[in-house]
């Protein structure tokens, strides 16, 4: 545990979490499926979602909540009546330079395997040119009567410059095994560039390094174009695996919502829906 903490502290300055998502979340931004987590700044829809790090929340709204769900991949040739799904609820509160976000997720794989995840992210605009947050994730996975619980942590640093925001993160840093056999999940380090909205929309690039895997690198490039102040379209492409995603988002003064599709060339389409309220 001590070693993990040291490792964690060393990486604070350099890395920031793009998201603290599910156990093997196929999308870098969890429910930000349409742009796959590349557009997180300002009013990018991902930034308001409660399960994204508090460092990414830069808005004038002070309180809000959100709910979302995702259905993963096509129906397959067994367990045809049982899908792989995830639901989440969350809330945030911003006061002064401090933002606190909390979320709860439930993941269900054809009623056989499930995960429950509680997340807490505390962010602060520590400096004028930088916000950062610390994330904690308590994961419980179970299959029948067997269960395991792990505690992970993440760190996010966001540097919002005039024409580009730079995000660095680490996530899934193992802190402690609470109970059960343990999973020993690989840590994920990411770095990204996000532009503010411009005449071409907003653009983002995220590079992920996934620890202890054969293909460690993953690149995601996304675009979000706002046709009107209320309506935007987004799209992204990722490597490893190659996935294309498309999404729409709309927002009013206090409400925003999104719907997205992500295509995996072999496993098929995933669908995501999100709804947020804030004031």
């Amino acid at each position, binding site marked *: 545990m001590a070693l993990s903490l040291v490792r964690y502290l060393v990486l604070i300055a350099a890395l920031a979490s793009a998201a603290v998502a599910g156990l*093997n*979340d196929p999308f870098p931004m969890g429910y930000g499926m349409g742009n796959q987590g590349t557009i997180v700044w300002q009013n990018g829809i991902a930034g308001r979602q409660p399960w994204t790090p508090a460092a990414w929340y830069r808005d004038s709204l002070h309180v809000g909540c959100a709910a979302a769900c995702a259905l993963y991949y096509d129906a397959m*040739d067994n367990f045809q009546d049982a899908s792989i799904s995830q639901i989440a609820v969350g809330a945030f509160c911003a006061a002064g330079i401090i933002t606190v976000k909390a979320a709860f997720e439930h993941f269900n794989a054809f009623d056989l395997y499930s995960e429950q995840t509680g997340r807490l992210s505390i962010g602060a605009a520590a400096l004028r040119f930088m916000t950062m947050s610390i994330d904690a994730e308590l994961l419980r996975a179970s299959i029948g009567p067997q269960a395991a619980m792990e505690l992970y942590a993440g760190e996010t640093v966001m540097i919002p410059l005039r024409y580009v925001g730079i995000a660095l993160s680490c996530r899934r840093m193992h802190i402690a095994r609470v109970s059960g056999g343990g999973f*020993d999940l690989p840590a994920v380090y990411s770095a990204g560039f996000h532009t503010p909205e411009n005449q071409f929309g907003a653009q983002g690039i995220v590079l992920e390094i996934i620890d202890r895997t054969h293909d460690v690198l993953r690149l995601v490039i996304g675009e979000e174009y706002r046709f009107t102040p209320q309506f935007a379209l987004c799209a992204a492409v990722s490597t*490893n695996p190659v996935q294309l995603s498309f999404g729409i988002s709309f927002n009013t003064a206090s409400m925003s919502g999104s719907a997205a599709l992500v295509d995996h060339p*072999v*496993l098929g389409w995933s669908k995501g829906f999100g709804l947020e309220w804030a004031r």
Partner: protein
Amino acid sequence: MMPRWCAYTLLVCLLAWFRGNAFECIAVTELLKNPAGNEDTIPGGKSHEFIEITNIGDVALTIDSLWLFDGGEIDSIVPWRDTLPQLRSCVLGTRTVGPGQTALVLDRDYALAPRASWFVIDPGTIILTTGDADIGNTLAEDDGVLMYKGTKSRIDRVVSFVADPGQQPSLGVTKILHMSGRKIAEGYSVIPRQVLFANVEWLQCPDSLSPGHYEYVKNGWLAEYRLGTADVSRQMLPCSLACLKIGGCAGVSATWSVASAKSTVSAPRALDCGAGPMRTTVDLPLDSTLYALRITDGGSAPAWDIDISTEWAPLSAIRITEVFPRATADEPEWFEVANVSSMSINLKGWRFGTGEDSLVFSDADLLVRPAEFRVIARDRALFLRRYPLPAGLVTAPSSWVALDNYDDTLRLWNGRGNLQESVCWHNEWFVSWKAGSLERVSTDRSGLDKNAWAVAVNPSPGMPNGSVTWRSATRASVEIGPVPFSPNGDGSDDYLAVTLSLPALATASIAIYGFDGRKIRDLPGPAQQTCRWDGRSDDGRPALPGPFFVVVRIQDDRGVHTIRKKGVLWR
């Protein structure tokens, strides 16, 4: 047409009959022309040559003025004088071969051969030899033999004549040809299949050697049969029978009968004893392949099998079910046949071959019972080293027709020369035939149909084809299990089994994907029914717990399609 030598023999018998109603007949019942061992040394080669004769008549044969001619040299036949230990139970020094007795004309050099190389001769066998050091001019593999009474320069009476049809017994020839139909392995003798019928066929002796007795004589009776041509419309096969009481049947009361396991074809009826063999004809129903001719003679009832499957077999009774044409240093070419009929089939005399050549499986009985398999291999010893099967399942013909690795046709003919089975293979039928055999996945389909075959990585000679159960599906299917599986080394559910069922020509590739959509592992395939995943990635790392996906990509005649299954991994 009856060959000349047989006509001479029959003439002799007729003359004898006119002379006193006696039957005089000497049959050559075994010839060893190619003994095992070096030809130039005493231990083997020519020193072990012999000619076995059996007096099947009822008149004694004296060897006075008896000569032997092999087309090269004329030798007188004389009694054996050396008292060798191995001949202690034999009859030496006699000049008479009585009715029913067997004599061996043995090479004189046999006395010089070391003890270890002596063969066993039946007790009571009369041992003769030639006046010269060798039998004739030593017997070549294609040499025939003429035994006659007369002088060195004149034939008074032909006693026996072993030669191919069309030759006449004469001292003026330089060669008496006796090819015996096919090549005989070194160390094996040849024996006549029948001596009571014309056109004798000679076979390789199943026991390699049997000096001192004629295999078909039982209890002093010799019974033989010859099959006609099957009349399919009547479902009958005419069969000529001949039997002979050696030494004459005066005062003998005997009956004969023919029956199969299912029915009696010919009820017991009295044998009409006279001079020479007794003959009759019966029609054998084609509802069985094995009949028995039984002669009841007082208390004994010897029986001879009448196996019609060497001449006739139900159409498609024998199927080629697996072929291995791609020999390696560790594995010879082989193929497997199966009897898919309800009758036993004897492959004796059956031929196999490609479009270019054909050869006989076996001269010996090679009975394949219903649902049984036989493997025909080029090299029996090498095959058995590779596949430790019961040795009786494997046959190695004396010669082999090489199978083409890529494209060939393999055919089977029965003893009558009728085509019974034909299969072929083409390399381009199979996407991934790098090794292994071709298994017949369905005997309902013609062996010329590409859909009847599948590549088997794990060949199954001598047993049901593994592919039959999973390569004969009309549509591909995949099953995985257990779900969940837990590759934690506790001995329970440590492996995920991916079980395929595919059309014969379909190929499949199997990949495992993690929940994050990344490919974890490629599994080998497609030529095995079940692939196992140990829960690790291609580079050996443990896969993450949670959902995963098994994606099987199948390519067949209808194109490419994918079957996806989901599972859960837990550690």
